[in-house]
């Protein structure tokens, strides 16, 4: 993992399930509308942006360690996942993406 400009790379786990793949991404604080998921061949591309929504007038930082900016993540699979059924939801701040064989 190398730090990059405004890009950051969330960590991800990939599970093989009886009916396909489960991808778990450590992506807390990102709204669903800021999320972009795409499949190409055997690659899964996740990108988006974590925004600092706590900022308001009269509020200031004491410490800042969370990275607020765009992120992207490209995951490779051993086989093509083109045409897989894609579902995602947020559980406890983790983004879960299910890739199911049709």
């Amino acid at each position, binding site marked *: 993992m*190398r*730090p*990059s*400009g*405004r*890009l950051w790379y969330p960590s991800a786990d990939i599970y093989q399930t009886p009916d396909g793949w489960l991808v778990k991404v450590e992506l807390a604080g990102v709204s669903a509308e800021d999320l972009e998921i795409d499949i190409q061949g055997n690659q899964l591309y996740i990108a988006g942006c974590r*925004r*600092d929504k706590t*900022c*308001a*007038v009269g*509020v*200031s*930082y*004491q*410490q*800042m*360690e969370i*990275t*607020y*900016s*765009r992120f992207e993540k490209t995951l490779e699979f051993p086989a093509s996942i083109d045409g897989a059924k894609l579902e995602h939801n947020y559980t406890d701040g983790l983004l879960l993406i299910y890739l199911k064989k049709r």
Partner: protein
Amino acid sequence: MAKNTENTQNTKQEAKLNAPKQFEIAVLPLQNTTLFPETVVPLAVGRERSVKSVEFALSTEEKLIACLTTKTAEVTGNEAKQSDLYTVGTIVNIKRMMRNDGVMQLIVQGVDRIRVVEWTQEQPFLKARVETLPELQVKDLEEVEALKRNIMGLVQEALAMLPQVPPEARMAIMSQNNPVQLSYFLASVLDLGVETEQKMLEADTTDELLSQTHAALAREVEIMQIRSKIATEAQGEMDKSQRDYILRQQMKAIQKELGEDDGEKAEAEQLRERLETADLPEEVRKESERELKRMEQLPQAAPDYHVIRTYLEYVLELPWKKSSEEKLDLNEARKILDEDHYGLEDIKERILESLAVVKLRPDSKSPILCFVGPPGVGKTSLGRSIARALGREFERMSLGGMRDEAELRGHRRTYIGAMPGRIIQSLRRVAVNNPVMMLDEIDKLGNDYRGDPAAALLEILDPQQNNSFRDHYLDLPFDLSKVFFIATANQLQPIPAPLRDRMEIIQLAGYSDAEKLNIAKQYLIARQIKENGLQENQLEITDDAINLLTARYTREAGVRQLERTIGNLARKVALKVAEGNTEKVTITENEIKSYLGVPRFYPEKARDENPAGVATGMAWTEMGGEILFIEATKLPGGSGLTLTGQLGDVMKESVQAARSYLWSHASELGIDPNEIKENGVHVHVPAGAIPKDGPSAGVTMASALASLYTGKKVRSDTSMTGEITLSGLVFPVGGIKEKVLAAHRAGIRRIILPQKNEADVEEIPEDVRKELEIITANRIDDVLNAALESQPSEPVGKNYAIPDMEPHSDAIGESLIAKEK
């Protein structure tokens, strides 16, 4: 400080997409730092206005802030005005922020180059409208490629010299393909100075940026090369001294095994310690330290080691600055001199005069006195008394028989067994630099091919030069000017003139019998009683007995034999006392013979009657004075002059002068010139074995010859001295006191002296003078009139008429009967 490469293009585009071409943004002034796009840098922000800028930036969603560098390092973030800041800077994204004691620790990453279009706010923090600057343009692809390759080469060179850079970082740098990114990275890593960095930031084309990077990097590499060269050299030196140290430690271990340890280091250490505490003149200290350093580098077994050690010890023991306290009280000094010596009034006066000068001007050059006189008159003990009167140390060295200059001045240290000269040795012994130093027997210095010690003395005894006396061994200047030199001599004449000239000569004559009696009574008897373990009430010697001792058992000008003879008596008495005799022993004149045997000397008595042709003269010897007889006899039919009795040239010539005078004035003196012409004459001066010389027997010769030719006897109660000239004048001579005393001892009561010696008569002790008739003479005629009997005793030679010769009453020298004074 790894670098993202793959996503650069992407990022740039997005930044441009996200940011409007022109936008308002908070500004963070930076001192001494220039930020470049894509580089990740930690920043510390502490100043109030800057903190506000950062806080504002953090409160925006993008968390972007514009960093502008101040033109000079002196302007702080709080007071920086717009004019103090460069207009081209970098927008950075704040990645992390921590507060630490009110100081914000930021990690920022450069995003884009910007230019300030318009300042919009100065308080509470700086804000400006900025525009992003376009991507760098490539003008000449080949040139860019060439520069890039060169830069990579330089980077490789630099990395070779930086072993501390971790391999990952090397990989990252070497794999950076984008020359712009590489340049920015190098600029942020290297400390190129604000101006250079700002120029690189403002470069609009890749060509320009790369050529600047290349120049800066080349310079850096060169500096690094020089630095590494210096470092290598320093390292080399360190290695060498370290190696020496280790070897020395090993040597020590070996020496310890051999049982040669301790000492060496300790010795040098001790010497150093002593050197540091000793009170030395600057020049001496420097020289000693140099020698010590040399010694420390030598192994103990080296011969030089011990030479240097001895040398240093010598240097340390010398009294460079140590003087003994002067306690000069003239009354006290007079008392001491009187206590130690009988009589010698005028000499004591001279000494006190010299001491008075020393007292009045303590910094004045010490006088150099020279006592000249016969043995045993107290020259050495006078020196000792002077030291006592001055309260100084006394050191005596005998120069008699010294033939080698090195004895005085030392040998150079190159010679084995070299030692300092006697002067320096004496000073070390007394341990002060102002002793009274007695140079005994200065008239008996020898000299040969090894050098002339008298010449060395010239320097030592010259107050102008001896403040920096250089001993050959020490080779350091020593100040002898505080030393009170006293020389002694028996005779003045063997002392080289330049040496004589440097000294104040004080003549000590011999003592008369009366003086000897007093000295014996006051000093010698008491001292011998003490030395032989007697009590004062156990021995008494009568005056008559002492007189007998001086007359018949000793013959000297001084009192040394007399003291020895008294010591003899004392020992014999001591034997009696030890055997149980408790009564006081009184030795009288008559008992002397039973103690000491028959008298050893028969005084040279005046002869009862001299035949014609014999005259009584007086001679001066080192032992004092003596009378001597001059015998002349005619050799009928012979011719010329025969001289016997070991006469020196001067004395021979003086006989010739006397004869020639008589010959030329024969008729006036009633002499038949044919007597002289036709007869040879023989002059003999007993005792025949003793060499004699000097002109002072001139008048005696003339008297003897005149007596011979005229047939008139020379009065046997008369003795005479004086030099004569061919024209008949009588010149003064020396040693009058000794001569007269000797004549007096011999029973002579009439003395004929040169008129010019009248002053010396005063020196003759009064008791002697009283008994004498002293006649002074100006011309030979005066002498002859006083010396010869008026009538010839018998006819001399052939029958010829001797004209009546009335003594010219006016020609008789004024007779000087000693008067009471």
